[in-house]
């Protein structure tokens, strides 16, 4: 049981001109499941390897339970890691794979036997203890890798994309198994993935990284609902958030957002902030907040946009994705519609944007512009 505190961590690889990790600070609480999420090459695996002690730290500190471990060798950090490749020792059977780390730590044979049997029973590996890794299926190998971490009873679990080699069905069940084990054992876990579904479902909190830097840290739904910038907005959510370039017009008191032939009153955002925007911004709206037909009549947060032409319709079974082109807007807009969407490619439609769930981003910095609570003020944004 441990807290992990990372302070101003940076990593420069030999021969690399640019920092792979830049000035990263992060604290993982005792028993917390923290997910590092980001596209490949964003530095998340480097962070994990520095925590594990597999990679030297260029600058900054990693502390476990308040003790800085920068100079502590990997073997003495009391950390267990599950690798993407599982890293099972191919010349040892499952039992020895599980027991290998315990033997080195001078644990009595009877205790090793007890722990290995316990973990194997918990993970359904009892029938395979005498098998070599090559005689196991992908899912079984994954469970052995997890078992190897569990028997160690470490202070911290590290996971480096452990599910990405599994097929879709197995990934879901293993994901649930992993969550269950972590919650049951209560061991602090840091989990690296580029899969946003894993991040959303597994983490107590997620830390989104891009180009070696932390972009946003928060609870999964918080981050999903309140992205800090367009990177998070596009990276979380599938399909990603629609970003519509808008021009801003108005005086110090009231502004309009214009795109194509549409003009909306921008009352959810502070006027003085809008006047600093150089007349341009991005309106972000998630596909589930765009409606094919008005879901609630009389809700003034819903704005109808006419003349959208249907570019493509993708029925996914449980839902239908409709790709639309709005008049005068270069970006296509994706709508998450019900499974019985009536729209067909080539048709024209009127759609409803839920401005109550929309975000506005600064086009230059890509940062979100904080909303203000306008419920108390009279009237919601109305088409002008």
């Amino acid at each position, binding site marked *: 049981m441990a807290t992990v505190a990372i302070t101003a961590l940076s990593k420069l690889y*030999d021969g690399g001109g640019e920092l792979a990790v830049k000035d990263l600070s992060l604290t993982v609480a005792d028993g917390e499941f923290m997910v590092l999420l980001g596209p490949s090459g964003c530095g998340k695996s480097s962070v994990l390897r520095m925590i594990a002690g597999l990679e030297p730290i260029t600058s900054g500190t990693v502390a476990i339970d308040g003790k800085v471990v920068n100079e502590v060798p990997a073997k*003495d950090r009391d950390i267990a*890691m599950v690798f993407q490749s599982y*890293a099972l020792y191919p010349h040892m059977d499952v039992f020895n794979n599980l027991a290998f780390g315990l033997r080195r730590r001078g644990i009595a044979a009877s205790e090793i036997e007890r722990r290995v049997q316990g973990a194997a029973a918990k993970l359904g590996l009892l029938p395979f203890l005498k098998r070599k890794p*090559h005689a196991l299926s992908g899912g079984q190998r994954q469970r052995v890798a997890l078992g*190897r971490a569990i028997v160690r009873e470490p202070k911290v679990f590290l996971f480096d994309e452990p599910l990405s080699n599994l097929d879709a069905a197995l990934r879901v069940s293993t994901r649930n198994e992993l969550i269950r084990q972590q919650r049951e054992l209560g061991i602090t876990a840091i989990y690296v993935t580029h899969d946003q579904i894993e991040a959303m479902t597994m983490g107590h909190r997620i830390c989104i990284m891009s180009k070696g830097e932390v972009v946003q840290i928060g609870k999964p739904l918080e981050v999903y609902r309140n992205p800090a910038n367009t990177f998070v907005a596009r990276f979380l959510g599938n399909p990603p958030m629609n970003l519509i370039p808008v021009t801003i017009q108005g005086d110090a008191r009231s502004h309009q957002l214009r795109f194509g032939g549409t003009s909306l009153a921008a009352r959810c955002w502070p006027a003085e902030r809008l006047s600093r925007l150089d007349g341009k911004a991005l309106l972000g709206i998630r596909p589930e907040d765009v409606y094919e037909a008005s879901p609630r009549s009389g809700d003034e947060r819903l704005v109808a946009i006419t003349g959208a032409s249907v570019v493509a319709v993708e029925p996914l079974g449980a839902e239908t994705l409709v790709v639309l082109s709005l008049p005068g807007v270069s970006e296509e807009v994706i709508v998450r519609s019900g499974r019985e969407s009536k729209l067909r490619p080539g048709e024209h439609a009127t759609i409803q944007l839920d401005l109550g769930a929309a975000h506005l981003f600064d086009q230059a910095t890509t940062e979100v512009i904080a909303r203000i609570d306008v419920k108390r003020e009279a009237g919601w944004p109305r088409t002008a």
Partner: protein
Amino acid sequence: MIAPAAKSPAHNWAAHLRRSPLLAFMLIYTVISGGPFLWVAVMSLRTTPEIFASPYALPSRVHWEKFVEAWTKSNYGTYFWNSTIVVVTAVALLTIIGAMVAHCLARYRFRGNRLVRFVILSGLILPPQLMILSLFQILLEYRLYNTLTGLIIVYVAGHLAITVYILEGFFAQIPQDLFDAARLDGYSDLEIFWRITLPIGVPALFTTVTLNFIILWNEFLYAVVLLTEDDKRTLPLGIMHFMGSHQLDVGMLATGLMIAIGPVILLYALFSETMIKGMTAGAVR
């Protein structure tokens, strides 16, 4: 409806015909490589007069006693023992040292690692004839001339390059994750070498052991220059001994050759499959 017919005889013939160049090649290759061996094997069981009377005949009477004679009267026991000491020691040292060097080169990035690799692997392209005079001088100065120890050292030095080359290629394929996992499991670098690299590298180790054994067992050039006393000679020198300056005892020469070939054939029969696997297969599937 007619079920798809089995291939017609004509079709079969065409297939055979297409394959006939390959079969012919295999046949010629087998005759060229296996023929001389078979001939020597037959001659090793015949006496010299019998051989001169009819070189290619099968033995009219099998002279097993020639093997006993070669072993006892021609000092063959000593040669065989010398060869065994030299080759087994050299191969053991080569395997351990070569594996350690290969492990370091494949696993660690250290200052000057490219230089070290270049120096070691440049041994691959140096012809032995080039070094023989200087080696002779060095061994003389260190009182290692005419000793088995001297020859063992020369063999280890001479074959380290090819050993490291083969092993490094294999070790480099072992995923880094395995080493990282072992480090997190608490093992030191040396322990990781013994418990991870060596066991996983067994197929490659078999390859180098077999290869080095066969080459060193037959090595002649260094041995003939660096050993002069009869009781220090290795098998290849002993065989030359049968070719006296005045006479050529073909029958005993053949017997001597068969004794010398024996261990190589045995080794190859036992390990050829593992060796080929080691040369072709990846480290970890």
